[in-house]
């Protein structure tokens, strides 16, 4: 149905139409981008319920800030920035709550990775990727909110370090180091369980 409107063919057209107050134009943008936004926030939170809430929050924020979209980045990139920041805020809030609890139960705290089965099935029987799929969630939970955001934007969305710095409102160097720490943590957490040599001890 939206194909009958000229403005619906490009994101820029739909944004311009939405700015005149037409919600149908914004609906086109939601339908076009909701799944990729969902993938992004799912990768950051590793949780279906959080991801669903964050997609909703992202689009509401985007429509309230639509007048601030200046077209320098594509609409999709702009949307990803909002989504990454929404997810970062959620993770930060949750991590600071968790830290308070951890501080309280400091003696009984256990490393979440140690609660995972350490007898990983042999790599011959399971492909590396399906095995990682099972272990990635717990491994990601060891990353800080900013590390997760920077890593997901770099690794899955192909954003440059420069773009990630802009998106997360940090200097490129800080974005770069967040990615480094994310890669280090993920390798330390996952490679021993996968029977892969880290190959980084040189």
């Amino acid at each position, binding site marked *: 149905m939206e194909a009958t409107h000229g403005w619906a063919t490009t994101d820029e057209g739909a944004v311009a139409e939405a700015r005149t107050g037409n919600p149908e134009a914004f609906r086109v943008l939601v339908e076009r981008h909701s799944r990729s936004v969902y993938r992004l926030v799912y990768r950051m939170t590793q949780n279906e319920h959080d991801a669903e809430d964050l997609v909703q929050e992202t689009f509401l924020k985007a429509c309230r800030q639509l007048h601030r979209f200046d077209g320098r980045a594509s609409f999709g990139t702009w949307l990803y920035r909002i989504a990454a*920041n929404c997810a970062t805020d959620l993770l930060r809030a949750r991590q600071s709550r968790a830290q308070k609890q951890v501080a309280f139960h400091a003696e009984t705290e256990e490393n979440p990775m140690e609660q995972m089965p350490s007898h990983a099935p042999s790599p011959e029987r399971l492909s590396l990727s399906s095995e990682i799929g099972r272990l990635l969630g717990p491994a990601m939970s060891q990353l800080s909110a900013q590390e997760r955001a920077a890593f997901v934007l770099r690794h899955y969305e192909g954003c440059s370090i420069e773009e990630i710095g802009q998106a997360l409102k940090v200097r490129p160097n800080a974005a770069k180091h967040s990615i480094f720490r994310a890669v280090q943590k993920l390798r330390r957490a996952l490679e021993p369980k996968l029977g892969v040599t880290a190959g980084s001890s040189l």
Partner: protein
Amino acid sequence: MTHLTEDQLTLLYYGEAGDVEASHAAACEPCRARLASLAQFMDAVRSVPVSDPRAEWQQRLWPAIAPQVAEALGRRRSGWSRLWLLGPGLAAALAVVFFSGMYLQNRIDRSHPEAFSPKSRERVLLITMGDHLDRSQIVLAELANAPESGKTDISSEQQLASRLIGENRLLRQTAQYSGDASDAALLDQLERVLLDIAHSPTQVSSGELKDLQDRIESQGLLFKVRIVGAADRQKGLKL
């Protein structure tokens, strides 16, 4: 010779390393092997699929947000377009009202009673006041409803607030001059908040945004501006 660090290998993997790292990796067998092992791991992490969102959630998404989207887009459209169109005309009308009241009341009213009759002046004043409050209300509501995030860019609200300050001052003086104490008090309260908005940094932190929002909500300012604005315009149009 110093081998590449894991971080340098990571940059190489992402194609963001410099020439030095690239030529080292090209020449050094151990580093190439480490890069290959990193790449194998990273590619495997990338290949982990995310299952599609639940179909029923996808169907519910738009109906769930549509009312808020329509409200946000509609408010901005009616608000902004009126704002840009009426701005200059209102200021001119206001200046006429103000100066006619201040300086010309006795002289012109006697020679041209129909031109600046008290009734027509009151009508222009009420409509001007109604529109001024309506436009102020839009700026205040924008900020009051701004979602909280690390930094919020309020530059567009600031530009509008700056434009409204001059008009507000004239209206306040007019209200004081004509002895309308309640309008004068409301405009005085509004002027202080408009000044706060105009003088805030362009990018406000969530704490600064919260302060502004508290000032906007304090003593029911937003509510009063909305109610008095609508009432004044109604009265003005009936005169």
